[in-house]
């Protein structure tokens, strides 16, 4: 074989390439009198992505003087990418944020408050949970077009079989009732595993789905007033007790590991902790047997998770009003419904709730709306320390699952969280007195 | 065309190996100068300094009266033939020949024409599109020559250009090189370790040893009147026999102690070597070419007894190693140890080991060296 590659030619091509690539950065094309609005959003499910793309197209069509440029970023590294962009001062005008991470961005000064940018009428129409999740240090920084719902899905037939009371939001199961229910159901169940906690999800799900149990029992992730320490709260008696119980349920083989993500749809378990995104599939599998129940009251009332992706305007946005206009557009009833229909989430505005067959009064998921509206939803801690809090809580759940000592796991997590908060001097706001 | 001049040229290596020490030499315009010496003597270093491939430590090199010490090889207009030819393996013969001209940015037409002519001269025409790998040793050698002569350099430098060839081819190409050099009349420095090659090829020969220039002269001069014991031993095959000896002043004349015998040195020899007079009463080295020793049928005052040790029959001549009472000198050896007296006889002779012979050494055939090895003249 003869290789007649002319290396010298190859090399000169290389030299040209060097000069080319060092010059080639990003294309910055801007046409006169066209306001560009750069928008970053997470690349969610296919249906969600395409709705958002359609919404952008509709907006652009309706506003010939504005051009929204949408970039979809994979969910896995979304936060990291935004943070890195923030460092570089390269944030787009408008970003989508996962609710609980908002505080960090607000504290770091990357966001503009929305209080003066949004129409008060629109704000008044928002679900209280949307406002709660979007607030930090008494200002509103972000609003979502949808919120999330968390509850217990149940198999009506099996509940009836075990002669269990169907709880309501007004009268949820108490801890004792809940444990009794688990026991009753387990007796009739072939493998005794009756509850699906979606332990196969891992990640943020643990904090979102399981920390309401903690809060319902009187514990929490962190002390909520000052948000300065988790000590005595996350490792407090209430938290410890309920997590020990959780561990007992797991080690006592009441919980299905849900490896195949089909514990409930395969009707292996009669009870499943789940969110709004599960409804479509569950309904398809169980039909009329599907029940949606409120979270049990483990001591201080029924608590549920809340918060989802929301929109925020960055400090780099040159035209915050235009950006706010886009948000307002997304929050119009039709657009909210379009998105909520695509991903099944709870519409963020009351007017859309009324127009939603699922969420309106009498709809199968009306409970989710009620929970959020009546303040059962507990926002995940609104502190810039949230990333570490959730990471630590996920670690706790992992360790509990494998049978580790609960108290030790909690103490270690508290230690880390408190250290992180201390290292950031308690996240003082600009101008705030240092302790 | 150019003359080369080395003035006090010195090359020192950091490692302490001697390179060249204060060498003075002139190579005339158009002359073929052969640098000969044992390997490691510095002759290649000298050549490479001339080419500009090695730094000069001190002294100067002049080409055509211009000091070139600091001129890079590219600008010296010299051509060189390397021992292993250094043909560019990825180029065809044509490419190799054309390369120096392409470097001069000659027009393509002219390059083509010159390549064609050179190929004709060197009989390379049918090989022009081959690569070096597909050539025989002799062919490669010719390509290397061609590459050197194609560009009309001022100076040719040849670094053992024949050493990779077999003996027959070597003789053949040797003649060809001599012919080419005369024809082109380009000043040439030719390095070899082979004294026979040096003697047949050189107009003048420079003998170098351990970085020092030993002698420069025509082959004849060097052979007949070696400047020192080293040259005497190095030139000629086999080299000169060197015998430890002493001179005595006796009866108003000078006598030479040669083994058991004392020979009076005749006046005509003393006239030829006036220096002998100043070295009387000293030990000296006596040199005699092996072919100048003859066998004698009879023992006499002028003969020495000898015992045959070994014989090397070469067909047209026989070399006999003899044990004698003579003390063979070992300190000026250029090639290997020698403890026997060598005698070169024409024709074929049959001796058995141990056979007793009588040899005759003619006083007129002797050379004399002082105890440092310098020729006594």
């Amino acid at each position, binding site marked *: 074989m003869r290789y007649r590659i002319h290396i010298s030619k190859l090399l000169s091509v290389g030299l040209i390439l060097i000069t080319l690539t060092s010059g080639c950065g990003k294309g910055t094309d801007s046409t006169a009198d066209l306001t560009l609005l750069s928008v970053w959003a997470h690349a969610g499910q296919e249906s969600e992505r395409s709705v958002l793309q359609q919404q952008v197209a509709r907006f652009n069509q309706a506003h010939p003087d504005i051009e929204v440029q949408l970039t979809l970023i994979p969910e896995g590294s979304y936060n990291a990418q935004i*943070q890195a962009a923030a*460092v570089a001062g390269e944030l787009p005008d408008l970003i989508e944020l996962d609710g609980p991470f908002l505080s960090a961005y607000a504290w*770091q000064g990357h966001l503009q408050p929305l209080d003066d940018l949004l129409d008060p009428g629109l704000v008044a129409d928002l679900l209280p949970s949307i406002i709660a999740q979007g607030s930090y240090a008494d200002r509103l920084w972000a609003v979502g077009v949808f919120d999330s719902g968390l509850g217990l899905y149940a198999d009506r037939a099996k509940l009836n079989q075990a002669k269990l009371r169907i709880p309501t939001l007004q009268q949820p199961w108490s801890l004792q009732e809940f444990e009794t229910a688990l026991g009753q159901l387990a007796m009739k169940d072939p493998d005794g595993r009756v509850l699906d906690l979606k332990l196969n999800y*891992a990640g943020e799900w643990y904090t979102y789905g399981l920390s309401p149990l903690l809060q319902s029992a009187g514990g929490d992730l962190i002390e909520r007033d000052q948000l300065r320490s988790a000590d005595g709260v996350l490792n407090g008696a209430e938290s410890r007790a309920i997590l020990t119980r959780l561990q007992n349920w797991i080690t006592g083989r009441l919980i299905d590991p849900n490896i195949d993500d089909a514990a409930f749809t395969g009707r292996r378990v009669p009870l499943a902790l789940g969110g709004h995104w599960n409804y479509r599939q569950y309904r398809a599998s169980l039909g009329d047997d599907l029940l949606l129940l409120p979270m049990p009251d483990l001591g201080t009332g029924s608590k549920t998770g809340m918060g989802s992706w929301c929109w925020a305007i960055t400090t780099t946005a040159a035209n915050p009003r235009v950006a706010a206009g886009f948000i307002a557009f997304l929050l119009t009833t039709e657009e909210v419904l379009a998105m909520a229909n695509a991903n099944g989430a709870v519409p963020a505005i009351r007017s859309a709730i009324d127009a939603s067959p699922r969420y309106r009064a009498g709809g199968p998921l009306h409970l989710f709306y009620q929970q959020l509206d009546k303040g059962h939803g507990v926002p995940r801690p609104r502190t810039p320390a949230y*990333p570490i809090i959730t990471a630590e809580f996920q670690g706790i759940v*992992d360790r509990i699952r*494998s049978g580790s000592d609960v108290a030790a796991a909690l103490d270690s997590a508290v230690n880390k969280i408190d250290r992180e908060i201390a*290292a950031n001097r308690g996240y003082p706001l600009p101008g705030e007195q240092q302790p | 065309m150019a003359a080369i001049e080395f003035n006090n040229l010195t090359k020192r290596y950091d490692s302490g190996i001697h390179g060249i020490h204060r060498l003075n030499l002139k190579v005339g315009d158009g002359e073929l100068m052969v640098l000969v010496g044992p390997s490691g003597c510095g002759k290649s270093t000298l050549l490479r300094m001339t080419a*500009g491939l090695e730094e*000069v430590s001190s002294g100067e090199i002049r080409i055509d009266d211009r000091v070139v010490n600091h001129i890079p090889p590219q600008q010296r207009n010299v051509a060189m033939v390397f021992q292993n030819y250094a043909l560019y393996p990825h180029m065809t013969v044509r490419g190799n020949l054309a390369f120096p001209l392409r470097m001069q940015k000659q027009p393509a037409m002219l390059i083509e024409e010159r390549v064609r002519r050179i190929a004709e001269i060197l009989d390379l025409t049918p090989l022009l599109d081959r690569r070096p790998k597909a050539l025989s040793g002799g062919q490669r050698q010719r390509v290397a020559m061609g590459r050197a002569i194609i560009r009309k350099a001022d100076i040719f430098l040849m670094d053992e250009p024949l050493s990779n060839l077999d003996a027959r081819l070597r003789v053949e190409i040797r003649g060809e090189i001599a012919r080419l050099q005369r024809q082109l009349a380009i000043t040439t420095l030719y390095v070899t370790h082979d004294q026979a090659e040096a003697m047949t090829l050189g107009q003048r020969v420079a003998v170098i040893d351990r970085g020092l220039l030993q002698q420069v002269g025509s082959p004849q001069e060097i052979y007949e009147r070696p400047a020192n014991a080293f040259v005497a031993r190095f030139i000629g095959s086999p080299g000169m026999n060197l015998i430890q000896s002493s001179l005595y002043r006796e009866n108003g004349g000078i006598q030479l102690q040669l083994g058991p015998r004392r020979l009076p040195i005749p006046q005509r020899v003393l006239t030829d070597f006036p220096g002998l007079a100043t070295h009387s009463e000293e030990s000296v080295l006596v040199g005699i070419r092996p072919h100048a020793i003859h066998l004698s049928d009879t023992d006499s005052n002028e003969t020495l007894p000898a015992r045959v040790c070994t014989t090397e029959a070469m067909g047209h001549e026989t070399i006999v190693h003899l044990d004698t009472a003579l003390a063979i000198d070992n300190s000026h050896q250029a090639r290997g140890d020698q403890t026997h007296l060598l005698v070169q006889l024409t024709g074929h002779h049959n001796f058995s080991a141990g056979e007793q012979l009588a040899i005759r050494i003619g006083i007129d055939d002797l050379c004399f060296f002082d105890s440092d090895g310098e020729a006594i003249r």
Partner: protein
Amino acid sequence: MSRRRRLNDQTAPALLLAMPALLGLLLFILLPFATALVLAFTDLRLGSPLAVNLVGLDQFLYLFNDPDFMRALLNNLLFAAVAVPLQTLLALALALLLNRGLPGTLAFRTLFFMPVVFPMSLVAVIWSLIYAPGPNGMMNAFLQWASFGLWEAKDFLRDPLLAMPAIMLLSIWQGVGFQMVILLAGLQGIPQTLYEAAALDGAGRWRQLLHITLPQLRNPLIFVILVTTILAFRLFDQVQIMTRGGPENATTTVIYETVQAAFARQQVALASAMTVVFFLLVLAITLLQRRFTHHQREVA
């Protein structure tokens, strides 16, 4: 002074030739590394509005008291301690089999080397499918078949005990061809005469392996072990794609922790400290290898 310019002093062209590479190394390797060295002694968090302080060795102290990081270190060590010998042995076995020069060897070599040209990201994805939980997963099904039905389907990547071995297995699968090729080259460099001499001296197959093959393979073996060990400490792609360090930190690694700290949590200073620790580890391994090979040279 200008006369000092020496004939063969090629400083100008040399700098011209070497400059692009030297500049690249300086800008993209030396400078970042120096930055990491400095940052490791601060408390810099990117994006934080708080002022940066010098904190001495605090970050390092934190790391060595951080159970996550210690677990990561342990995992790397575990990976090195298990996967490296297994992979090397397998590579050696394959190389020995191929070195017999039987017909068809080339096809086998091609096959064994094939995974090496696969990007690790793709390998991780393929093996995620192989490790699919439930009896439908290929690995589960295979083990069930191989154990005559005794194997109970597992979720390999979510099982704290199985996740690491699962990652080791696919890493070995992907990397063994690389080592095999190097060892094969080493085997082919052993003069046949050595074996002939040994055979004449009465050495059997095993003794030849023990007394000729292995000693002659010493340097290539040390090389592949070193490279695989360093790779073991660089473990990241598989972990990021398949397990994200989980379950329960069972598969977290130093690089994964570093990326998490730097990239997900903006703890630049802490990540820099991890970087420094990582570098020291790699340096130690390299020095160890240098020592071994030098020793060998003196003997030979």
